[in-house]
């Protein structure tokens, strides 16, 4: 029987790791993720998790040890955030290039400077070109479920890519919510054993991993990563379907909410999706034809689903806790790519908000919606809008 209990997202992530039974875990403390390795240490200390837990001296070594262990053919896990993920950056490309299905739990946090420990998505968004799969959880249950799903997808032979699962700093990492812990047996059946045919370190079958590729060979490695990301789209759908069948919880790459007759759709990710859905309910009561959509999967970018979504609205408002300077938010860029050659497409309006833990209030959403409504009326609006700025201190 599944256990219904309450826990923080960090604990949910540790529970997910425990259920996935990684053989090697390497982690380094960082706010707001520290509770993940703490909890895992307890599991290992109590004999509840039979894993080698390497208490490394940096995040760079955490991911490097995971690469070593994964290359030796075992399931691995780590958790980090923000500067820690940035320190891993170099090795993230390598893990993908070496096709190692490492899973990393991320407590999404801003990047320095100034140092700030609170939530936005700049850490994982900044790693969007590494070849890693990216999932974003709306709540603690999703954090647990998506880590299990991430393993399922990452280890699929058609994919073999590492994956990161993000959940918002403090809003989720440190907030207690109801969570259902699935049965170990069901998880075992869902995930199976990881027995790679391409990555192993076997003295009696020596292979050389991490070669140097000249221009005659490098580009094909990138193309295969591109293909694996494309293949992951279908594999993710299959994993979501199997997960729903086994555990009863439904996931979609792009989850829509009251979009059917919407003029405006508010698109977001992570825990903000919960706020936005509430806001949509409120706006609907006022007769505003607005819907919401949540990007559960950000890499691979679900181009087809986004195109379907776009058909339903005249304006798409992107609510994002990240910024590419001089361009706008990442979703704005990716939605533009998905829609640029469509014959009929909605207007895209980008909203940068909630950076470094700034609360996103209904008032902020009112402001965003009013700009989106202007766009709907055909009035000219800025493509990129900063919402919730304290103009009085600028």
């Amino acid at each position, binding site marked *: 029987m599944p256990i219904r209990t309450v826990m923080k997202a960090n604990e949910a992530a540790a529970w997910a790791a425990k259920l996935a039974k990684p053989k090697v875990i390497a982690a380094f403390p960082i706010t707001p993720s520290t509770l993940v390795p703490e909890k895992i240490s307890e599991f290992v200390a109590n004999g509840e998790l039979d894993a080698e837990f390497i208490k490394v001296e940096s995040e760079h070594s955490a991911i490097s040890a995971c690469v070593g262990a994964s290359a030796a053919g075992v399931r691995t896990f780590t958790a980090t955030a923000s500067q820690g993920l940035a320190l891993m950056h170099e090795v993230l490309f390598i893990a993908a*290039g*070496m*096709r*190692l299905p490492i899973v990393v739990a991320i407590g999404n946090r801003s990047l320095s400077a100034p140092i700030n420990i609170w939530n936005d998505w700049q850490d994982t968004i900044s790693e969007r070109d590494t070849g890693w799969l990216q999932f974003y959880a709306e709540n603690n249950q999703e954090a647990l479920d998506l880590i299990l799903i991430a393993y399922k997808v990452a280890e699929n032979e058609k994919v*073999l890519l590492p994956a990161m699962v993000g959940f918002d700093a403090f809003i989720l990492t440190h907030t207690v919510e109801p969570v259902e812990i699935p049965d170990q047996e069901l998880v075992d059946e869902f995930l199976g054993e990881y027995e790679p045919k*391409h*990555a192993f370190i076997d003295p009696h079958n*020596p*292979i*050389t*991993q*991490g*070669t140097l*590729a000249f221009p005659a*060979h490098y580009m*094909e*490695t990138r193309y*295969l990563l591109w293909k694996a990301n494309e293949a992951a789209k279908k594999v993710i759908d299959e994993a979501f379907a199997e997960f729903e069948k086994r555990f009863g919880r439904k996931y979609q790459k792009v989850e829509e909410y009251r979009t059917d007759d919407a003029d405006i759709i508010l698109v977001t990710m992570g825990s903000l999706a919960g706020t936005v859905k509430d806001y949509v309910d409120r706006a609907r009561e006022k007769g505003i034809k607005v819907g919401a959509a949540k990007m559960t999967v950000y890499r691979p970018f679900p181009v087809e689903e986004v195109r379907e979504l776009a058909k339903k609205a005249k304006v798409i408002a992107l609510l994002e806790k990240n910024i590419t300077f001089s361009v706008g938010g990442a979703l704005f860029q990716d939605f533009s790519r998905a829609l640029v050659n469509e014959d009929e497409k909605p207007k895209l309006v980008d909203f940068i908000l909630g950076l470094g833990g700034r609360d996103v209030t209904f008032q902020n959403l009112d402001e965003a919606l009013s700009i989106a409504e202007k766009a709907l009326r055909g009035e000219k609006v800025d493509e990129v809008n900063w919402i919730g700025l304290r103009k009085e201190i600028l």
Partner: protein
Amino acid sequence: MAESPFKEDIERVQKEYSEKMTLGAVAVIPGSSVVNKTGSWRVFMPEFNKDKCVRCFLCYIYCPEPAIYLDEENYPVFDYDYCKGCGICANECPTKAIVMVRETK
């Protein structure tokens, strides 16, 4: 005639070599570098005088390639497919059983 310790590797790579891109760009045939006949780099070549050899093994131990292996009697055999002609063997040979002579191709 003594055989190169890399004979099997040379045969395997001739049979199984493929440029097909592997997952993670893994090189799957151990010792497959033997396809690169680095002997073409050579300017001077070691000339071996067995009569002077005391089988001290120093040339065998020091060779960085390795392009020196041992025959049935443990005398050095020079593998000119790979010898880059560095001359460490001749320089270290205590009995001057190895001398470097200009390559004539």
